[in-house]
């Protein structure tokens, strides 16, 4: 996993480290009608930190991510509050600056990996393209590095995969390729918006393990968005629970899980306790898995 970056393996950063992404009371709405959809989200991401955002469809979690990536739908805008990426206030960014920032500082993977790849181009060159555009690598170097990246996301036979088309690969493999492409230009922040939702549980666990690896080896900061509290609990140190556009709970994962304050959080936890594996494994008292 040392392949992904030349950066030294990040030791858990001290709290004084500058945030790579910070949102301060971000509100999103339609500036023309005044309708507000997201009512104030704040979060701060330092290198190597993993923050989870939990909520149902329509809770505003994806819009918040899209605001941070500068890709809000045309009729919506950040109406108040501020977003800073690596110290730069995004409201001041023009399209050229955004292009420079995306991929190399902030990057993202989404739910349906197949729809982000061109079906008629082999997957390898699509990863290599990022390297050629963002890092200025020559064709051959880019190919070489892309294969290294495919290996780094634990794809077996990376040379073979390089020359395959999206339809020849499974959803889990495609998601790995997108993660490889998203990390190709060594970003500091990766937003994973429901990145494992469409995958089988066993594949989901593989992708979550992979994200934890990337965090540990490169100091990548992660925003993990999911409707499943357990997915977020597994990976994140800090959790935001969103409902109807508002953050109803925000705190360290253990606090949110053990001492939930909002009814909605409690409902999410109850569901897992009644209908999850807890019914059976609760008494087993297995030691908590450490991501390190």
């Amino acid at each position, binding site marked *: 996993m040392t392949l992904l970056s030349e950066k030294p393996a990040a030791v858990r950063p001290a709290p004084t480290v500058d945030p790579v992404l910070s949102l301060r009371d971000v509100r999103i709405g339609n500036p023309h009608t005044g309708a507000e959809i997201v009512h104030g989200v704040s979060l701060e991401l330092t290198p190597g930190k993993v923050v989870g955002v939990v909520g149902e469809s329509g809770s505003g979690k994806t819009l918040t991510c899209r605001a941070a990536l500068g890709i809000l739908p045309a009729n919506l805008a950040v109406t108040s509050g501020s977003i800073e990426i690596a110290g730069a206030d995004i409201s001041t960014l023009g399209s050229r600056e955004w292009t420079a920032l995306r991929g190399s500082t902030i990057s993202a993977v989404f739910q349906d990996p197949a729809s982000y790849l061109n079906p008629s181009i082999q997957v390898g060159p699509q990863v290599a393209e990022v390297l050629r555009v963002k890092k200025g690598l020559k064709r051959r170097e880019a190919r070489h590095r892309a294969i290294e990246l495919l290996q780094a996301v634990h794809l077996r036979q990376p040379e073979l995969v390089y020359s395959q088309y999206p339809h020849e690969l499974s959803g889990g493999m495609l998601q790995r390729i997108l993660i490889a492409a998203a990390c190709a230009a060594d970003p500091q922040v990766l937003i994973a918006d429901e990145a494992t939702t469409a995958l089988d549980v066993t594949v989901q666990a593989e992708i979550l393990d992979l994200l934890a690896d990337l965090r540990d080896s490169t100091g990548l900061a992660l925003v993990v968005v999911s409707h499943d509290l357990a997915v977020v609990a597994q990976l994140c140190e800090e959790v935001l629970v969103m409902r109807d556009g508002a953050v109803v709970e925000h705190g360290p994962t253990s606090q949110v899980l053990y001492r939930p304050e909002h009814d909605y959080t409690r409902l999410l936890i109850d569901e897992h306790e009644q209908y999850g594996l*807890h019914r059976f*494994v609760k008494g087993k008292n297995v030691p908590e898995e450490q991501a390190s």
Partner: protein
Amino acid sequence: MTAPVLQVSDLDVHYGLRRRRRQALQGVSLDVSAGETVGLIGETGSGKSTLARAVLGLVPSSGGRIVIDGEDVSGYRERQWRRLRRRGVVQYVFQDPLRSLDPDLTIEDSLVEPLLIQGVSRREAVARARTFLDRVHLSADLLPKVPGEISGGQRQRVAVARALVTEPRLIVLDEPVSALDSANRVQVLEILKELRGSGVALVFISHDLGSVAGIADRIAVLYQGELVEVGAAAAVINEPDHPYTRLLVSSAPTLRAASATRAEREELRALLSV
């Protein structure tokens, strides 16, 4: 001891012809008794839905036997299947209620249709529809609406009510809660739990071990077209036997503890990839 409502023995299903022929199910045997909920779990492509479709007569089997409520349906032709379905002995609920309910029919029409086909009078049918709507905790106000006017969770409950009106012996539910958010998922699972008392046999298919664990008496694990493990829910989850089941259990995200270490998962993955 009464005979099981569903007996599947040594079932084979193939898709495709000649060189493209692929085996989707191989030697699957599974019994489901009255009042029992069997959870069927497996990854994408493992054959879960194929098994459901074979039991409903939607795909032909190429070997083995299927007996539903004492009736051997293995060699049934389309016409015989249609007669069986009309009697309402077997019902089904699919993942996407928008596609299993006719978008142009009101909820009332969707609910009474299976009864009218059986020759029940309209008035009687409407009364039964109301009863079953109540059983899934929905108000009768929804009757004149069409599926597009109600929420996804309500639609799925209507689909469950529609499956119940003919008082079937067996209901096959294929990923019934996968598209629902947590509040609605809990509601549908509660309803399914309540059904157990009425003696109907349920086959509950899901890729999510969590929701299966919540309601199944027994869990059957399909892996690459074969049934690799069947047992009491607690046993399958606490002492999984097959490597795939072990990986599945150790991959399932839980809130407070992962049930296996990272190293264990990697070992199991390696074991399965051989």
